[in-house]
């Protein structure tokens, strides 16, 4: 035993504790590791992560990789490696502390090494009895008791107290309404909404304000963006050819479903298997377009079966990520290295989706099965045409002998015309790719290293073995899978989905790794809160608006997002939630926000995607001139970003830090680069929005300070402060002088954008105020939800 090797270990335990406490306090690590040294070791949060990271690769679930036939991920096997209560007498402890290179675990060639602190934790854990627990995410959800009116605040404040912290004061009301408005609708509050809320002194003012935003149409659009990212939605196939598809009726269905507050279990089940529901409605079938949003590869020389297998894998993996929070894709080629998922599990999940009749051939963007989704006008025209065709056929059939009857010829002509019209109408009606199962089941196989041409054993549709099985009498198809996801016995769906919802409002999940709640995911910062929320979501009948209302009415959410040195050093990521969260808006929201502040945002919902402003030549350059960008016009230019045409090989240039819409992504990107500054400062969208805003404000003929105040209210939702007024007034004088000297510059500046500059306002004045508005739209505060 090499105790001497680790000086810390030879200390008396009290000294050790004193030595460790400051160490723990300054470490920039998730708060789960901030547990006090005098609390018993928590196996799930403190020990399993160490074992998983350092040992499971060779002593874990993957049978092929396993060394010495030892598993440390299974209780019975692991317990053979130590003597509970006596670390010094335990093989496990001896091996991780050994001086002997041949004995030492993990071995040097693994590139893994335990820290002294990790060794100490394992030592203490063994000495405390070496209790074993199942990985937290796989355990049944028990709704913890709450001794307070607001459960969220109860759990968060508990944790804060443990860390000698307290809530920050509430943010001021102007900040709050902007925060809620952006979080719930993706748009800033209008001046009316702002005034209404600031004037409302009733005790329910805040709750009522929240309800107004939850009821807004913009809510569905805001929620849908995240879902579209996860569902890898795009308006083209991707790859060579990159043909246009018409999946946008599915996108509109998603927006509508959110606005209708369709319970999340139905929302999910329709999308996964709406076609298999008894007497499936058009909407339920349309919803299954979700599975078909994957890219389609039309590259010459591709082998269709290889494509088809790729698509089915994509469907299975998307489901695994979105509802189960598991990294199933690891098991394409081998058993999982960390979670108890086998390659057989993977292909058994794959088998649910393998029954679709898609072939993988070519780059057809409407490859069957498809459903035609006419809009109302098209539906009416279609019925009319069908009626008139039926009538004509009737008339013709009543004529008797055709040959010598001139009326017959006439009817034939008419019939032909009407049928042509119907055909041409049918071509215009969007076809949405949806799901169906083949009447004759396809056999599915485990594929060697994921290769379509190397089938191994046959597999049958079933859920992963480590999770509760499908009900005994269930037919193992997509519908059963979709229903099983929401079975009370399945602990993953509620945890995974509520965690993602939380991340939307705090910028980071209770489990930071929203895409992975498996063994290698990060443990939750607030495990009880996560379970309470998960249970509440389920018990509420999967009422998404209810959950959002709960979250945003909490004291936790309403805190000011100001920070200070102590909080910054102790908890830079704000995992303990001792302050409100503050983060840059996603790029799509920055654009929508600017359009809304300009007053020009078009609030129509749904429909064909539009081509908004984009530097010329981007599509052309990506496609060797095959795809020509036709800039939209009029209202099309000012619609919300969710309606902007998404070409997979050349995504809209104004969108940055977004999911790439190639595969399912539930991770939020938030970087801060000079390229972003260039786009919000120089893109037509922002320059024109600035001019429109300036025009709107100047028309009111207010004093300069009043105009500035109004601009601030429109953009950052608060009155301007005197020092800010001073800076901007001086800037105005300067800019005006510059434009007086360069009148041509002022003119050309005002010509940017499709809309003509207002003739009412004198050129130099309008140009100066436009450049001012452009600067205000680029304030950190304008780009940030705080």
């Amino acid at each position, binding site marked *: 035993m090499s105790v001497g090797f680790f000086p810390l270990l030879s200390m008396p335990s009290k000294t050790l504790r004193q030595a460790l406490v400051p160490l723990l306090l300054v470490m920039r690590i998730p708060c789960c590791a901030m547990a006090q040294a005098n609390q018993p070791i928590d196996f799930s949060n403190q020990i399993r992560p160490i074992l998983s990271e350092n040992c499971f690769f060779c002593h874990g679930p993957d049978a092929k990789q396993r060394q010495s036939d030892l598993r440390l991920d299974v209780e019975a096997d692991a317990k053979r490696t130590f003597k509970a209560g006596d670390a010094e007498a335990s093989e496990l402890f001896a091996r991780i502390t050994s001086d002997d290179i041949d004995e030492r675990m993990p071995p040097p060639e693994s590139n893994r090494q335990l820290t002294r602190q990790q060794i100490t934790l394992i030592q203490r854990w063994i000495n405390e009895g070496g209790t074993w627990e199942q990985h937290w995410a796989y355990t049944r959800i028990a709704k913890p008791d709450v001794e307070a009116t607001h459960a969220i605040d109860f759990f968060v404040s508990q944790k804060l107290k443990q860390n000698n912290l307290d809530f920050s004061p509430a943010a001021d009301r102007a900040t709050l309404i902007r925060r809620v408005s952006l979080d719930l609708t993706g748009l800033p509050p209008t001046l009316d909404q702002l005034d209404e809320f600031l004037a409302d002194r009733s005790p329910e003012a805040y709750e009522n304000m929240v309800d107004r935003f939850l009821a807004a149409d913009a809510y569905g659009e805001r929620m849908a963006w995240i879902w579209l990212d996860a569902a890898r939605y795009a308006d083209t196939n991707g790859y060579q050819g990159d043909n246009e598809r018409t999946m946008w009726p599915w996108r509109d269905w998603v927006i509508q479903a959110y606005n209708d507050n369709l319970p999340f279990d139905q929302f999910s089940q329709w999308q996964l298997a709406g076609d298999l529901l008894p007497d499936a409605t058009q909407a339920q079938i349309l919803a299954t377009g979700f599975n078909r949003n994957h890219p389609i590869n039309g590259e010459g020389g591709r*082998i269709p079966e290889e494509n088809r297998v790729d698509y089915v894998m994509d469907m299975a993996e998307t489901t695994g990520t979105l509802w189960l929070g598991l990294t199933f894709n690891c098991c394409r080629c081998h058993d999982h290295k960390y979670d108890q998922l086998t390659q057989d599990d993977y292909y058994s999940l794959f088998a649910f989706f393998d029954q679709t009749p898609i072939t993988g051939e070519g780059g057809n963007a409407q490859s069957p099965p498809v459903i035609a989704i006419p809009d109302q006008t098209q539906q009416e025209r279609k019925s009319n045409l069908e009626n008139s065709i039926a009538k004509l056929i009737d008339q013709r059939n009543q004529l008797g002998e055709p040959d010598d009857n001139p009326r017959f010829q006439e009817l034939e002509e008419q019939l032909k015309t009407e049928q042509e019209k119907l055909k041409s109408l049918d071509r215009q009606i969007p076809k949405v790719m949806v799901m169906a199962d083949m009447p004759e089941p396809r056999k599915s196989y485990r594929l060697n290293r994921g290769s379509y041409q190397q089938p191994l054993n046959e597999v049958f549709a079933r859920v992963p073995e480590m999770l509760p099985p499908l009900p005994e009498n269930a037919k193992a198809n997509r519908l059963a899978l979709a229903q099983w996801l929401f079975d009370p016995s399945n602990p993953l769906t509620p945890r995974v989905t509520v965690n993602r919802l939380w991340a939307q409002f705090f910028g980071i999940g209770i489990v930071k790794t929203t895409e992975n709640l498996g063994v290698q995911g990060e443990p939750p910062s607030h495990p009880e809160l996560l379970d309470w929320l998960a249970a509440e979501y389920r018990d509420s009948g999967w009422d998404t608006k209810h959950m959002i209302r709960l979250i945003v009415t909490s004291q936790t959410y309403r805190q000011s997002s100001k920070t200070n040195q102590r909080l910054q050093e102790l908890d830079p990521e704000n995992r303990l939630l001792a302050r409100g969260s503050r983060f840059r808006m996603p790029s799509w929201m920055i654009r929508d926000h600017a359009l809304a502040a300009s007053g020009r945002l078009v609030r129509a919902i749904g429909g064909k995607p539009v081509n908004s402003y984009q530097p010329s030549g981007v599509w052309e350059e990506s496609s*060797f001139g095959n795809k020509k960008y036709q800039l939209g016009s009029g209202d099309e230019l000012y619609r919300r970003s969710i309606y902007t045409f998404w070409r997979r090989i050349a995504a809209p240039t104004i969108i940055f830090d977004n999911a790439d819409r190639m595969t399912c992504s539930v991770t939020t990107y938030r970087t*801060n680069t*000079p390229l972003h500054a260039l786009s919000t400062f120089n893109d037509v969208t922002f320059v024109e929005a600035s001019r429109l805003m300036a025009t709107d404000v100047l028309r009111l003929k207010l004093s300069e300070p009043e105009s500035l105040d109004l601009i601030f209210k429109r953009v950052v939702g608060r009155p301007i402060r005197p020092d800010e007024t001073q800076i901007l007034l001086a800037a105005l004088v300067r800019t005006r002088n510059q434009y007086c000297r360069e009148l041509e*510059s002022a003119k050309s500046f*005002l*010509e940017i954008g499709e809309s003509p500059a207002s003739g009412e306002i004198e050129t130099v004045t309008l140009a100066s105020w436009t450049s001012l508005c452009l600067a205000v739209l680029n304030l950190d505060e304008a780009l940030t939800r705080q």
Partner: protein
Amino acid sequence: MNQHPSIQLHATRREFFGRTANGIGAAALANMLAQTGLALDPGNRPHSGNPGADPTQGARLGGLPGLPHFAPKARRVIALIQNGAPSHADLFDWKPELAKMHGQPVPEHFIAGKRFSTMTGQADGKLMLAPIEPFKQRGRSGAWVSDMLPYTASIADELTFVKGMHTDAVNHAPAISFLLSGAQIPGRPSLGSWMNYGIGSEVEDLPNFIVMTSVSKNTTCGQIFYDFYWGNGFLPSKHQGVKFRGSGDPVLYLSNPSGMSRQMRRDWLDDLAQLNQRQLDDFGDPEIATRIAQYEMAFKMQASVPALIDLSDEPQSVLDMYGPGVEEPGTFAHNCLLARRLAERGVGFTQLMHAGWDQHNSLTTEFYTQCRDTDQASAALVMDLKQRGMLDDTLVIWGGEFGRTPFIQGEFNNRARWGRDHHPYAYTMWMAGAGLKPGLSYGQTDELAMNVVHDPVHIHDFQATILHLLGINHEKLTYRFQGRQFRLTDVHGRVVHELIA
């Protein structure tokens, strides 16, 4: 406070960083700046970005502590990626036996159990096709290069030929993705992203990972430059390659709006910084400091990028070296010259991609155009770097995503439509500079250039070697995603030390 890195970085904005906002410690700010890739390593000087100043000595933005793992041979990489897959049997891999077997069916044992694209389907009975132009041994090294590439042939002694390349993928997009990101499926970080993430940047007013694309005029090639070829994958998106465009602003949104002069922009930036500083004082969020810095960086880029692409300071002799089209934006020659200018400025990873090498039925036609449009400039780049003393620490790589079948695609009696199909089992790439063995031809294929028989170099080996030259242990540059540590070479890769002097 005088040691604060941001002061060195943003001398003009000294006042904003001179104060500590709301008591945020310098350490916290520095840490945050490091996370956003802005901080310089302590003790290092920033590089001005001007050619002439020596960017060598150490200044780095971002990067990981402890990297490079060991002294690098290469400080920067220029990758000349030839999309579509140049035919190794026609350019570098001379096989007299193949010439002899011209028109005879491929011997069965060469193709047993092999998978080809659907365009070939079953390879049985396909006829062998001799190289379409003669080969010669070149220079002192005696490396074989076809007459198709006279300029490359003339510098053969500078090049290191890797003749035993092989890959897993059989179609373009997956194979290029494999070459550049180590995985056939899009979504992993590309080489340049890994380098930027691990090593950081020596240049502050230009992106450190730059991509330029080109295609020969009038080619029938329809291959697309997918942005995942320079994608950041799961790395933070600031590590994504920045694509310079062939027309309009080289960087999207680079130019000020018309009617907004540089002076006006400067003035507004100062106002904006003042207003943001108030916000920083009030909220204490270090992200605000980063935002101020990034707007400054954007302003600098607005000057440095136009200076970069302004070739008026290049003497005619240099322009001539790169050949016709060098002054025409969007050509391969132009991009090669820009690559040299980027290297001078300290840019770490420049990725050129030239499409059109997919000779399914154009071996006797477009193949000539491809060679003509890339040969001279590729060779010029190597020699230009050499004459400036930069080849020693610049790695240049040249090649495609796989090879082409030594047997024919198309009708043997229709010479105008001769072609070769995709061939992942063997091909050639060349490398130059960065302490490699010049003149070496490493690896060998069988007598028909069909399979590697000696010293194979798999894509992952190739990648491990590139990282090694950059001072990176490919097994240790990892990023945690979805619960596991990912790396460029997955769980594979061998550094090919035999290539290194």
